[in-house]
């Protein structure tokens, strides 16, 4: 049982790390998605590539980058969720494991 608790505690560390990395991706996606160059590129229609310059290509690339950040965020987030499910399935059926796991979490916190 001691080994199972150690493994669950390790799994919990992996879950926390994946959650943090998912959040980083989500936050980056939000920053990138919130960046809009429409006003900055605005000018009269007779200048450069027209009134919005290269905006449509730029915003397409931006959305693509938001897309890949979001995809990676979901993969990490859902994997973290899977790890929580796994921890739950082992702790919900055995009160002693649950108790030992809780104590180990308190003794070796994630930081």
């Amino acid at each position, binding site marked *: 049982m001691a*080994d*199972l608790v150690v*493994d669950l505690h*390790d*799994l919990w*560390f*992996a879950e*926390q*790390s*994946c959650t*943090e*990395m998912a*959040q*980083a*991706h989500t*936050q*980056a996606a939000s*920053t*990138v998605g*919130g*960046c*809009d*160059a429409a*006003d*900055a*590129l*605005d*000018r*009269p229609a*007779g*200048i*450069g*590539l027209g009134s919005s*310059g*290269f905006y449509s*290509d*730029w915003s*397409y*690339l*931006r959305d*693509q*980058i938001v*897309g*890949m*950040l979001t*995809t*990676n965020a*979901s*993969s990490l987030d*859902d*994997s973290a*969720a*899977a*790890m929580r*499910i*796994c921890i*739950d*399935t*082992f702790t919900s059926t055995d009160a002693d494991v649950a108790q030992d796991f809780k104590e180990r979490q308190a003794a070796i916190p994630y930081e």
Partner: protein
Amino acid sequence: MSDNYGDVRGEATTLVDRFAELETRHQAMLAFETAAEDGSLDDAHAWTNERRARELQVYSDQWYGEIRSWFEDIEELFDELADLPDPGTLLSTAQSLNPALSIMSGPSGHTDISGGTEYAPSASFDKLQSVPTYLADWNGIAADAFKSNFIPPLERVAHNEFEAIVSLRSPLLAAGEMWKQARKDVSDLIDETNSALDDYEGGKGAADAVLALSIIGAVVAVAAVPFTGGTSAALYWAIAGSAIGVTGAVVGYPAEPKKELDISGDTPADIAVSLRQAVADMKLQWIENEIFIRDKIRSLTDLISGYTAPSEDSPPLPRYPNVGAPTSGHTYSQATVHEFSLPRPALADTTPGNAQDDDHFGKPD
């Protein structure tokens, strides 16, 4: 050079007034000489000062309005040039992406090679390399795949994401530099035109030197802002991963239709012609510069979609997925796509019912 850009419209109106005034005088002198030749006026060279002033006034009262109308298009020309994109707004928009770079700098940190800024390791990623160790005793199929296929490339992919954000920012920095120089060129054009009119007015031939477009200097700056790291292009894509078969694909220079603008002419009207031509040449250069930037953006879009052009000389169009299917010259690689977006791990689809199955986490050894 004076900085006229703050009041381009006012400067243009003053310029049109000068064209009209000097062309009126020019036309008056032609008229006096012609009239002397056909005998309807006596020799203008011999007039008294009073007579000179009077004759000029009579001529100007009659013709100034019409002559001014010959130059009024110049005001419209500059009306458009007065509203070029604001370099400051472009710069601040570009910089608003910096927080995303800080977050995505990965477990080891990265240098933003476009500006040399060092981004410290991101705390969110500090246990990334330990995740496989944490999962060492979880040997279900999905857990093993997660340890060996998802986590190990994640650091590299996060770096590619970092570089992609840098590449999204670069066009805005490049455009900021470009329009800053373009505004200077507009301002210089006004100065050069006034100078040409000064020479006409003072009875002097045009000077030899001509106005070198500073936008050409900006072209170098545009190219130096790395979509792929400028001179460090090879390094950039080496970092981006061996799966990406692109070497320096997007380093180059925009076409340069005209490097120098020559504002001169034997008469005010001729000078106006050269001014109109110079504005056209300048605007053409802006189009070339923006096409250059746009094509860099398209190359990256193609790359993230898995499509790469066969060589750096290949045209970026037609392209996937904006414009139908890729050309036969473009090659598709799913591995390239995965350098940016990792395939969803099977582990992510675990449910309470299957978590302990051998297909998923299994039971720890």
